[in-house]
């Protein structure tokens, strides 16, 4: 149906790129922010602005915290449809306790999984979560939203749309589209090497926008490809749950074989047993890692079948100095502390799997690489954004003549997804500083502000988009740039006034917050530059009651 392979690829690139590009912008932008998610958490929750801490003592700090954890009423209500018979309000059979920390975490995340009696699925578990200060075990209030790791991060992989994993599927489709757009883009771009460094901002808008689109797409091509691909690989179990459906027989067979082989019991014994000193087990694990020449911190600590004779404790090394997230697991019998198993080195395929996952999730300590990741993410945003702008520029004069609204609609959506999305992100940060500290469900209110700000940006962009239907530029671009500049500066001021952490102080003493403030100021500067540039470009001449935009001639 297409005249040639190249034309077929061009069609896929244009139309799938356009439709899924809006989702991809969110994935790339919030993904870029997620590189420094924990630093954004520090900015959003001032009480956690202290230095990163190692995994604390289990016996002294973690155990009392775990023992007091129970699922929330909301979690219990959500579980009710999956239970036959009476719904307990307390859960006493603990399947697992786990704690995870990285070299960037001042606070520790705790997870407790409980057996659900009378559940329809015998493997069903109900979860409780808590964040604690590792220095004393004090719990962080539940409604202090971790704007970085608890909002921006899930935003980038699921648009926070949890209903039936719909958001995961949408982002997954967008990721597949990204891969298709990269391959089809390479097919379309005949002069990939010849035009590798080509960017001609002095030429007509269509040419210079396309140059920038090609530039940002090609120079970071490995990054764009690998992040889309590894994102899909990480969630492959959601998209293709073969092992839990069609081939669950093999999965269950493997679990039985593995339990026999590793000596780590799959089921509870049913007889209670005490818990030996976990701190002693952690010490032993660290001793063994050091003996292998791999001294390191504890990244992940997990207790399985808690309180049972079959219980075991697993200690994993944090992958701070490597791409893999955690590794070198050592498992101990919970009741006695004897070593049950040292995980063998990963297989070749296992190493590839660790590399691909760790490359994307980046829990390693390498500040340059993290910074370069943000650059890659922003390059991806620039690539998608210039794609939209090119689409509109190419068609708006033609649509103006025909009297159709297509270019106008795409332009309004583009403004919403580019400047509008930044405005929404800034709005949640500002709300975080302005809302009362003791407001119940504060995190929910912050999220509402985010969505309303984005909606407002859409309304503004649509309302102001009439000129596009005449073949001219939408003034909303410039107006939202000014709004970004103002909000970003306001956020920095609000942080200073609200917490007393002025930038010149945090610059020397607490770089996570200084970093966020500086990024906000840089955003304001960039937005100001863009707004002024957009104004210089469009000289409005009133001729016979009609306004005509004179682009590019009046370059500032």
């Amino acid at each position, binding site marked *: 149906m297409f005249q040639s392979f190249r034309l077929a690829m061009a069609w896929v690139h244009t139309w799938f790129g356009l439709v899924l590009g809006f989702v991809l912008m969110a994935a790339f932008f919030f993904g870029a922010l997620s590189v420094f998610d924990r630093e954004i958490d520090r900015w959003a929750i001032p009480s956690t602005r202290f230095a990163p801490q190692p995994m604390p003592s289990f016996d002294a700090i973690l155990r009392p915290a775990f023992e007091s954890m129970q699922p929330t009423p909301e979690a219990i209500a959500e579980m009710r449809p999956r239970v036959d018979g009476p719904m307990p309000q307390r859960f006493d059979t603990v399947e697992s306790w786990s704690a995870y920390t990285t070299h960037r975490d001042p606070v520790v995340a705790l997870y407790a999984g409980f057996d659900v009696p009378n559940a329809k699925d015998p493997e069903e578990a109900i979860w409780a979560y808590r964040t604690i200060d590792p220095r004393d075990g004090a719990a962080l209030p539940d409604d202090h939203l971790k704007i970085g790791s608890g909002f921006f991060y899930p935003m980038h992989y699921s648009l926070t749309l949890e209903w039936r994993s719909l958001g995961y599927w949408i982002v997954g489709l967008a990721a597949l589209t990204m891969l298709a757009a990269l391959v089809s883009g390479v097919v379309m771009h005949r002069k990939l090497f010849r035009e590798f*460094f080509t*960017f001609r901002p002095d030429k007509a808008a269509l040419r210079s926008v396309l140059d920038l689109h090609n*530039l940002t797409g090609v120079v970071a091509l*490995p990054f764009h490809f690998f992040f889309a691909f590894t994102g899909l690989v990480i969630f492959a179990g959601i998209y293709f749950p073969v092992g839990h459906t069609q081939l669950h027989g093999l999965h269950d067979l493997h679990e039985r074989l593995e339990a026999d082989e590793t000596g780590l019991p799959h089921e509870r014994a049913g007889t209670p047993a005490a818990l030996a000193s976990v701190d002693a087990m952690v010490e032993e694990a660290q001793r063994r890692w050091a003996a292998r020449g791999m001294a390191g911190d504890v990244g992940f600590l997990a207790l399985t079948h808690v309180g049972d004779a079959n219980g075991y404790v697993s200690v994993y090394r944090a992958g701070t100095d490597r791409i893999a997230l955690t590794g070198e697991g050592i498992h101990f019998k919970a009741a006695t502390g004897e070593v049950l198993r040292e995980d063998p080195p990963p297989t070749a395929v296992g190493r590839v799997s660790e590399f691909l996952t760790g490359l994307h999730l980046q829990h390693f300590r390498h500040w*340059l*690489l993290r910074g*370069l990741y943000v*650059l890659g993410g922003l390059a991806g945003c620039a690539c998608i954004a210039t794609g939209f702008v090119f689409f509109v520029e190419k068609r708006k004069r033609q649509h103006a003549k025909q009297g159709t609204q297509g270019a106008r609609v795409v332009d309004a959506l583009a403004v919403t997804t580019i400047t509008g999305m930044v405005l929404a992100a800034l709005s949640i940060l500002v709300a975080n500083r302005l809302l009362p500290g003791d407001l119940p469900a504060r995190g929910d209110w912050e999220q509402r502000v985010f969505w309303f700000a984005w909606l407002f940006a859409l309304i503004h962009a649509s309302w102001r988009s009439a000129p596009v239907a005449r073949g001219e530029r939408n003034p909303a671009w410039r107006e939202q740039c000014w709004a970004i500049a103002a909000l970003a500066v306001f956020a920095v001021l609000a942080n200073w006034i609200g917490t007393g952490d002025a930038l010149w102080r945090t610059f020397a003493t607490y770089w996570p917050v200084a970093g966020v403030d500086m990024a906000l100021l840089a955003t304001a500067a960039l937005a100001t530059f863009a707004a002024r540039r957009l104004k210089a470009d469009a000289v409005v001449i009133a001729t016979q009651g009609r306004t005509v935009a004179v682009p590019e001639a009046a370059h500032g």
Partner: protein
Amino acid sequence: MADAVMLLGALIACVVGMGWLALAMEPHARQVWGRALPTSRSTLLRTLGAFGLALALSLCLAVDHASMAVLVWIMALALAALLTAFTLAWCARWLRVLAPWIVP
């Protein structure tokens, strides 16, 4: 500290290497010097460019183990390519400093 210095060196090597590769291309040589270069000069620049990128990779490998070093290098190449492209677009003449033996 030594690591930071070597990584900085790797970044510089990437930027300079990309600059040389760009200068070896005719349209960019014209942007920078106003004329095309003889083939021998272009080849020299291309060779220097490849050498610069290779030096950057070896510096990256000296700091981190291979899997991380390769990622750092690939991302540094992207940054260097962008910087080169923007320099060519707005202040092409600055790149003359990379090949001072060529007379404009």
